[in-house]
């Protein structure tokens, strides 16, 4: 593995046409259908999508954690000159897993060992990956506990998970993940199991530590509020594919894909009291079968004819913003955006004007069609 310096903002992991299949009772389930994405050093990327969209399968590929009945059926994941899809043995993976890429699981209640002290569990990781022993390891653990905002670390070191609240346990899980100074931190729904007030605190800690440890973080979540809080870039997944990717502002204030519109519109935060909340009808396509055309077409309230025939390519909206929808093709008739989305966009334009910045810098890069659609 090359250990050369990758500067902040340069591509750290390059994923090309990644396809991943599961074999279930003799049938093949296409969990990922050709994902391409570059993850840049130092950024925080959020992957959003409903359950079953493949977001967890996707990041499990970075850690080699997928189930036995799954296999990569195409594409590559290049990380520092190494193709992660080619790794097979546990020995090869142990170089990467934990040491280079660490993960925080969803539920802090089940991801700690109830029979071992907190200190033991953190120092296990420190000893294994950093080769520290005895007092040195203990000191490293104290420092980690301080980093995640657990005071009184000497007493806490000897305590068991049951003596910690949910938020405190999640801090311990973060400390374990950081114990071997990873380069990439994957947070799988880090706050879903927590209360709102605790959620905000944990996200604050994650943001602070990202700077301190120069981490590249990948968040998996279905909570768009969390995404808005932490992410620099957002990738929206649907039925095993990325349908839209862009900077946080682009995806929230100027979304292009009908699925992103639908996700945003169905949030109660944007709903109007007394009125029906927008809800996405139908169910995602069955991934046991080949998906023809645009995977979202059958649930899209205003599909185009071509959506049922041919899968759209990734269209470029701006150099950082891409979306997989035929609406961006110059030949498309365009569709009226939902009210909520227009309102978000207006609000953004206003805010930008107030701040003295102009968003017009983005405008020329968009196609003429876009103007017509709004």
């Amino acid at each position, binding site marked *: 593995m090359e250990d050369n310096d990758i500067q902040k903002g340069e591509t750290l992991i390059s994923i090309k046409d990644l396809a991943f299949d599961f074999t279930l009772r003799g049938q093949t389930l296409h969990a990922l259908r050709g994902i391409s994405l570059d993850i840049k050093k130092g950024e925080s990327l959020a992957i959003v999508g409903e359950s079953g969209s493949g977001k967890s399968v996707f990041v499990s590929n970075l850690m080699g954690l997928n189930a036995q009945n799954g296999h990569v059926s195409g594409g590559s994941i290049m990380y520092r000159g190494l193709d992660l899809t080619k790794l097979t043995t546990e020995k090869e993976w142990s170089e990467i897993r934990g040491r280079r890429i660490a993960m925080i699981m969803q539920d802090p209640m089940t991801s700690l060992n109830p029979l071992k002290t907190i200190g033991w569990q953190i120092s296990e990781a420190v000893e294994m990956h950093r080769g520290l022993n005895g007092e040195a390891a203990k000191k490293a653990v104290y420092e980690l506990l301080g980093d995640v905002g657990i005071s009184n670390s000497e007493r806490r070191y000897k305590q068991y998970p049951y003596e910690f609240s*949910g938020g405190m346990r999640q801090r311990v899980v973060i400390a374990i993940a950081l114990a071997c100074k990873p380069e990439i931190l994957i947070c799988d729904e880090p706050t879903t199991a927590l209360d709102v007030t605790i959620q905000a605190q944990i996200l604050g800690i994650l943001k602070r530590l990202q700077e301190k440890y120069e981490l590249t973080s990948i968040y998996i979540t279905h909570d768009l*509020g969390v995404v808005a809080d932490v992410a620099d870039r957002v990738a929206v997944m649907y039925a095993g594919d990325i349908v839209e990717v862009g900077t946080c502002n682009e995806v929230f204030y100027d979304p292009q894909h009908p699925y992103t519109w639908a996700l945003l519109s169905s949030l109660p935060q944007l709903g109007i*009291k007394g009125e029906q909340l927008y809800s996405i009808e139908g169910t995602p396509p069955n991934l046991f079968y080949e998906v023809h055309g645009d995977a979202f077409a059958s649930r899209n309230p205003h599909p185009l004819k071509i959506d049922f025939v041919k899968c759209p390519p990734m269209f470029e909206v701006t150099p950082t913003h891409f979306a997989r929808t035929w609406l961006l093709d110059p030949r498309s008739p365009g569709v009226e955006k939902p009210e909520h989305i227009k309102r978000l966009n207006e609000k953004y334009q206003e805010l930008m004007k107030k701040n003295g910045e102009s968003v017009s810098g983005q405008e020329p890069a968009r196609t003429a069609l876009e103007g017509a659609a709004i």
Partner: protein
Amino acid sequence: MSDEGNAREKLVEVDNISVQFGKKSRPFTAVDGVSFDIYKGETFGLVGESGSGKTTIGRAIIRVNPISSGEIRFAGKRISGKLSPSEDRQVTKDIQMIFQDPMSSLNERAKVGYIVMEGLYAPGNDCTNEEREQRVIKAMQDVGLPPEFMSRFPHEFSGGQRQRIGIARALVMNPKFIVADEPISALDVSIRAQVLNLLQKLQKEKGLTYLFIAHDLSVVRFICDRIAVIHKGHIVELAESEKLFAHPLHPYTQALLSAISQPDPIAEKNKKLIVYDPSQHHYENDPPVWTEIEDGHFILANQEEIEKYKAEL
């Protein structure tokens, strides 16, 4: 709804209730002297963090957790404590519950038809098999499930559909009042909207009254007419939703509101968190009382604080 004022009919009256767990000699008080009224036809929200006692209050109203003091009245009649068998049956029928996790609240070994029908087998519900079936079919249609699903098992359904089955099970009893304990927090984002819409539709059609228990304030704001904020077994503030969001007075309410996540990156990144510190209250000599500070806006505060809050209004 607010213009009707005091003329509104009170459906549920919770009067100074406390709930204690544990040994008599060393009790743990989960709910401490809580009072509120729920009006007919409204959605009343109960918000708080885990361990604050919100679920305990819901369970006290459906009479799962016995209360240790105070009184709960439903449609003017006392329902806490000992009831005659006929009253007991009536209350069981009138108050139903929707549970949080549709994955674990349905009997995996029973068919959907039986799950929905089970309440109708309770003694006192002497209807014929045919009537039962008709009522189940009606309830299934009300929640948007085709009656054919009656012969299937719960594992064949998605989370959203299972929650609909849970709602149908409550509806089949023709209740007047439903306690919904975090009915959408275990669901996927794309399905939450469907279930929220369904709850609102049913309320309109059947004139139901809801007690909506949740920790997610943005959802509560969307669906509830009035909201009570609960902290460590005490209700600290109660007001109409929009009033509460416009003028949160109690520091704990302010802390909760400041932590709401918005799908708005700019607002979200400039968000200022307020952390609630209970030691800011000086309650040693001047204990707090439950006071109506303006019309329909209640707050738990002592005399000194009331002066301060009044100035803020």
